[in-house]
């Protein structure tokens, strides 16, 4: 893999190599399949966090409805897998064979029309990208064209998350209700449940994650990324300079939605089910928490945030279930009050200068003049 030195500056390159080493080499070699599958679950949230870095960190648009897009992507994938698992042979005992089990339990006798296209994998993959993307486009256009932003946008996206959850839970016959879609088995005849399949799915997910990192980094470095930052800082000046602020906001929101949807689809594949408990208000806010803890301004920081907070959640709630919520709440207050740039902010403030000094002193010993700091300055 050749990396253009302009694409990543030095510290970003180090972050990239570190993340790639951990995800591609260290974790697969040291963890058993069960734990690796847990990491795969955490990484699905990293997709959402990546989207939030673009949308919230750079664009300044706080969305409390990322669970909606995560859920839409996940449900699209799960619908395909569920249809494949409900073939006529598998569902002989039902009163209507060939439809998903929860439909049969709810006295539905024919596959609903909107389920039909999910027999096709191509359609499903398109739907995973397009359904959340279009939904975000509609919400974004309606809101940003009318210059609704900030807290109002956050509250309305939260309401959308609430609506979708109630709808999914209420329409049990079409969606599986509160239990969600369980018992997903095969993808085009390939069993996704055994250990070797989980390992392959893990690597597919990591590759996809790095592809998304590449896209996010590309957006960040182009003029587009700079306009996003400018918009966050001084929205009116950007508007007076002749840019359409609304269109850039819509773009950032849609990108975040698509990233979240890819995460959701990978969730359905890796974890083997999808339920409304990943759609609603609480999971949506937790996704914001991962991003905030990792650092809303840093692509790699947000990914580490998603992995570390989820790791802490699993291990703490296994051993001290009472402490977990206290810990999460306190962590969140601390992040907001004391270090708003999260872990990556701490890294940049305390660790990075030492590393730079180390490099600088080596170069000084070798008799070079020190101008490397200028190269290493952040691109923003």
């Amino acid at each position, binding site marked *: 893999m050749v990396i253009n030195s302009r694409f990543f500056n030095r510290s970003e390159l180090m972050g990239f190599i570190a993340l790639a080493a951990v995800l591609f080499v260290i974790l697969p070699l040291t963890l058993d399949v069960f734990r690796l599958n847990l990491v795969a679950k955490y990484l699905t949230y990293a997709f959402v966090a990546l989207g939030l870095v673009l949308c919230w960190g750079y664009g300044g648009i706080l969305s409390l409805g990322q669970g909606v897009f995560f859920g839409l992507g996940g449900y699209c994938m799960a619908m395909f897998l569920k249809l494949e698992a409900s073939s006529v042979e598998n569902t002989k005992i039902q009163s209507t064979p060939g439809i998903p089990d929860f439909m049969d339990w709810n006295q539905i006798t024919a596959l609903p029309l909107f389920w039909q296209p999910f027999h096709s994998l191509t359609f499903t993959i398109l739907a995973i990208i397009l359904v959340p993307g279009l939904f975000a486009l509609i919400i974004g256009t309606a809101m940003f064209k009318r210059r609704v932003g900030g*807290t109002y946008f956050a509250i309305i996206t939260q309401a959308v998350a609430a609506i979708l959850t109630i709808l999914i839970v209420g329409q049990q016959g079409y969606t599986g209700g509160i239990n969600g879609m369980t018992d997903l088995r095969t993808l085009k005849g390939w069993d996704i449940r055994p250990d070797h399949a989980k390992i392959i799915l893990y690597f597919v997910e990591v590759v996809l994650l790095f592809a998304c990192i590449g896209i996010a980094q590309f957006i960040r470095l182009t003029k587009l990324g700079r306009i996003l930052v400018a918009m966050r800082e001084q929205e009116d000046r950007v508007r007076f300079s002749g840019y359409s602020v609304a269109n850039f906001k819509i773009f950032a929101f849609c990108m975040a939605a698509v990233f979240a949807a890819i995460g959701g689809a990978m969730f359905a594949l890796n974890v083997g089910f999808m339920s409304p408990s990943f759609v609603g208000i609480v999971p949506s806010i937790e996704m914001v928490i991962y991003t905030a803890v990792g650092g809303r301004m840093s692509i790699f920081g947000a990914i580490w945030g998603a992995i570390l907070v989820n790791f802490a959640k699993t291990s703490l709630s296994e051993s001290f279930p009472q402490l977990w919520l206290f810990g999460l709440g306190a962590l969140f207050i601390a992040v907001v009050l004391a270090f708003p740039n999260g872990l990556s902010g701490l890294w940049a403030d305390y660790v990075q200068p030492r590393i730079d000094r180390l490099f600088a002193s080596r170069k000084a010993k070798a008799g070079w003049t020190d101008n490397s700091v200028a190269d290493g300055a952040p691109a923003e």
Partner: protein
Amino acid sequence: MFGDYSIGDLGSIFVMQGFAGLILFSVYVLMALGLAIIFGQMGVINMAHGEFMILGAYVTWMTSNLFQAYLPSLFSGYFFLAMILAFLASGALGMLVEWVLIRHLYKRPLDTLLATWGLSLMLQQAYRSVFGAREVGVELPQWMLGSLHVTDSIEVPINGVFVMCLTVLITISVAYVLYMSRWGRQVRAVVQNRIMAGAVGINTEKVDRYTYGLGCGIAGVAGSAFTMIGSTGPTSGQLYIVDTFLVVVFGGAASLLGTIASAFSISQTQSTLEFFMSGSMAKVLTLLAVVGILMLRPQGLFALKVRK
């Protein structure tokens, strides 16, 4: 679907359904009043508002248990003391939270959302540790049980009537405090122009703290009233928080009248729709309508014209 009912029955059903909507309206108004002060006036997104409400509910529950154990003769009147205690407890906690947390965040409204969400998680866990995960319900005094017979086919529960009267009373007092009293003028002055308010000698920090405390205190009273019609668990507050925010936003954030109007329209829409379809679909349609209207009219029903 109407074929099975006579005209008279249908009328009664609408009246009863409307009354159920009025009880929901009372809960919304009580919840939203506190939030309209904190969010509408101060601009703080208080995600822990539901937890302040639940604190009031638990205080009421404890008071009722105390009266049952030590003062059974006065049990019929415990509720009035409980309400005052709920106001004081939630208000005191609110002022503490303002001092520790919120005052650092006035310039970053989106961050208050995240910080108060963290606070709400901690409070929920605290309730779970102290009071247990199970829902608790208070025992109502004798005079609050039963229902009033308006006509042969129309019955209204007494506790519902009581909660509604309470709502009216609290709303009037809040409106009086905000619009008539000296302190209310100070609050509105600080909200409109913090720097000028400080320049004319208003202690803005103190006003902020008491305003936040008042909002939380009203949430506590709401929780206290809530125990009359439902049971309380550690996470009950979270169920209402989105609805409450929508009520406040829909009404126009800085307007008390708007808050009341929007609480009324949302609760009546929902309870009327509940008669025609399942509860969840009624809720979905109501929320969709609210979100749809907000997209067309982002400033809410009643917007104050303020030069920014």
